């Protein structure tokens, strides 16, 4: 999995590409969120447009990060989900947990 990070005011935008799967991408997601919080960026927007696959460990890590960020008084949102990633979130009802956006400007405005 590859990642890039940029800040938009107090919002950290984290772009992910490749696979968010067990033993690799899932750990990286945790590290990126941990770094954001260390940098005092509690509002995090994941751009998943380049993500080709995510397994239950990757989903679990996203959920754990959501819980961690929320407990710290921040928000974690998602954007640019592919139809298949959307399906994966939907079948486990997680589409009701995360705020999901197709447009970055709209996503940034909703923090």
């Amino acid at each position, binding site marked *: 999995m590859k990642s890039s990070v940029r800040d938009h005011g107090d919002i950290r935008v984290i772009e992910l590409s490749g696979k968010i799967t*067990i033993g690799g991408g899932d750990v990286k997601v945790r590290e990126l969120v941990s770094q954001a919080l260390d940098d005092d960026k509690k509002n995090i927007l994941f751009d998943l447009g380049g993500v080709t*696959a995510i*397994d*239950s460990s990757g989903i*679990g890590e996203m959920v*754990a990060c959501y819980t961690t960020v929320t407990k710290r008084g921040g928000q974690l949102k998602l954007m640019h989900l592919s139809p298949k990633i959307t399906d994966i979130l939907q079948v*486990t009802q*997680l589409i009701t947990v995360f705020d999901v956006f197709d447009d970055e400007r709209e996503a940034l405005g909703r923090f």
Partner: protein
Amino acid sequence: MVNNTNLSADLVLASRFENIEVAERVLVDLCKRARCSEDEEYWLVTALREAVANAVRHGNKQDPGRVVRVTYAVENSAITIRVEDEGTGFDPADIPDPTDPENLLRPNGRGIFYMRQFMTRVEFTPRPEGGMAVVMVRDLEATDIDRP
């Protein structure tokens, strides 16, 4: 009209997460030979990855001395995948429903649920020699393309 197809493969993998990629590559090759649709291939790979990950992590506790056996068969318009571990076994009924509101924010417990969502049938059976075997079947879409 789908012709009968007879493709199969067997893998024996050390219990390392990176070997999930090996299992995936074999399945992708079989899917191409069986002329699966892109969607079929995607969901088959998704279910396979969950089964192998579970075997590595929960079954064999990532002990590289224990193996995961994966058997693939394409026959009569269905793909059957069997994944076996050498662990102590478990009762699938003990796995809580991840879609239950009280479980939604749990960081784990979705692997078997995904397997059941993306395959037509999933059955768990304890192995006589120890460990678990999961057999997953996905019926393939009817197509006018002659399958090999």
